[in-house]
């Protein structure tokens, strides 16, 4: 596997792989995200307690899960970058950070807009909400630490260490609803026994999660390309690429 994977550490190969993958991701992201949203908003039955306000779940839960998923991916990239000295891994890390930050913001915002009608408040300083807010600050910390170094190799290392240390927060977010008394409900699908959601509601939720994941992946692919270009603007292969694009 390493033999197969290793060439993609080279920026030019990574760029070309992105170029080939992007259209597939854009199309599948568009289809699954739209399907998830339409199904969730129009066809899923309304909740017997929460009425139609529960439909916020179709954006809240995917963004909350994937805010953590994106953080794991970012931390893994940082780890690969630090251990094997792979420049492309740091580029992947910093390409992911703003996506994760936006998705964390969405999770917090939709949570607040759901909390207002259901809990009677936009915000409480409870364990789940606070740890998710810390996740947002971790993302912002990684982004600003990376931006504050002129030498991007140094920047990658510093921000990478921060990203890896921040992984501590992930189990805290996940188990916060069990460890502390909280207003937030427990997990309904990310647990090992059968999910406690009716299939009519669960299917659109799973598709929404897939849809948002693919949307994020498509944005990530494009952002990684941009990051590679930005770092290698004067390399011959980029020059040739642009000349070729212009010729068309």
């Amino acid at each position, binding site marked *: 596997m390493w033999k197969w994977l290793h060439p993609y550490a080279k920026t030019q190969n990574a760029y070309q792989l992105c170029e080939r993958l992007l259209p597939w991701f854009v199309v599948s992201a568009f289809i699954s995200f739209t399907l998830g*949203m339409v199904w969730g*908003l129009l066809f899923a039955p309304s909740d017997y307690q929460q009425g139609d*306000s529960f*439909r916020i779940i179709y954006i809240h839960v995917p963004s909350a899960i994937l805010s953590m998923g994106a953080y794991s991916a970012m931390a893994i990239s940082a780890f690969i970058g630090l251990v094997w000295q792979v420049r492309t891994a740091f580029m992947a890390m910093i390409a992911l950070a703003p996506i994760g930050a*936006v998705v964390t913001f969405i999770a917090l915002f939709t949570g607040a807009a*759901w909390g207002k009608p259901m809990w009677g408040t936009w915000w409480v300083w409870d364990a789940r909400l606070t740890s998710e807010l810390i996740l947002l600050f971790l993302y912002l910390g990684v982004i600003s630490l990376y931006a504050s170094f002129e030498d991007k190799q140094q920047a990658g290392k510093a921000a990478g260490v921060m990203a890896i240390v921040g992984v501590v927060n992930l189990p805290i977010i996940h188990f916060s609803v069990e460890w502390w008394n909280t207003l937030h409900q427990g997990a309904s699908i990310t647990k090992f026994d059968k999910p406690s959601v009716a299939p009519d509601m669960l299917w659109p939720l799973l598709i929404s999660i897939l849809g948002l994941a693919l*949307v994020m992946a498509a944005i990530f692919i494009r952002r990684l390309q941009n990051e590679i270009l930005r770092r290698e603007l004067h390399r011959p292969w980029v020059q040739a690429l642009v000349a070729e694009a212009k010729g068309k």
Partner: protein
Amino acid sequence: MQFESFSAFVDMGGYGFYVWLSFGVSLLALGILAFDAARQKKVLFNAVEKEQARKIRIKAAKTSATSQVKSSYSEAQASPRNEEMKQ
């Protein structure tokens, strides 16, 4: 379909404001992110193109300058020398 009419769909059983606020802000945020990613690539490509055009202009200016010098040089010591060499 869970809703009887379009207005019922918009109303969301009285929770319309919260539901549409959530979905609206989320889509807007993702849209900005996607748009920015797409735009950045164009910006970078344009920067490289501009740099290339500049290099070509510099090269063209240089070669035209040298070719002018060369041509005046070869004109100045034109045929006589060649004929000398032939002899």
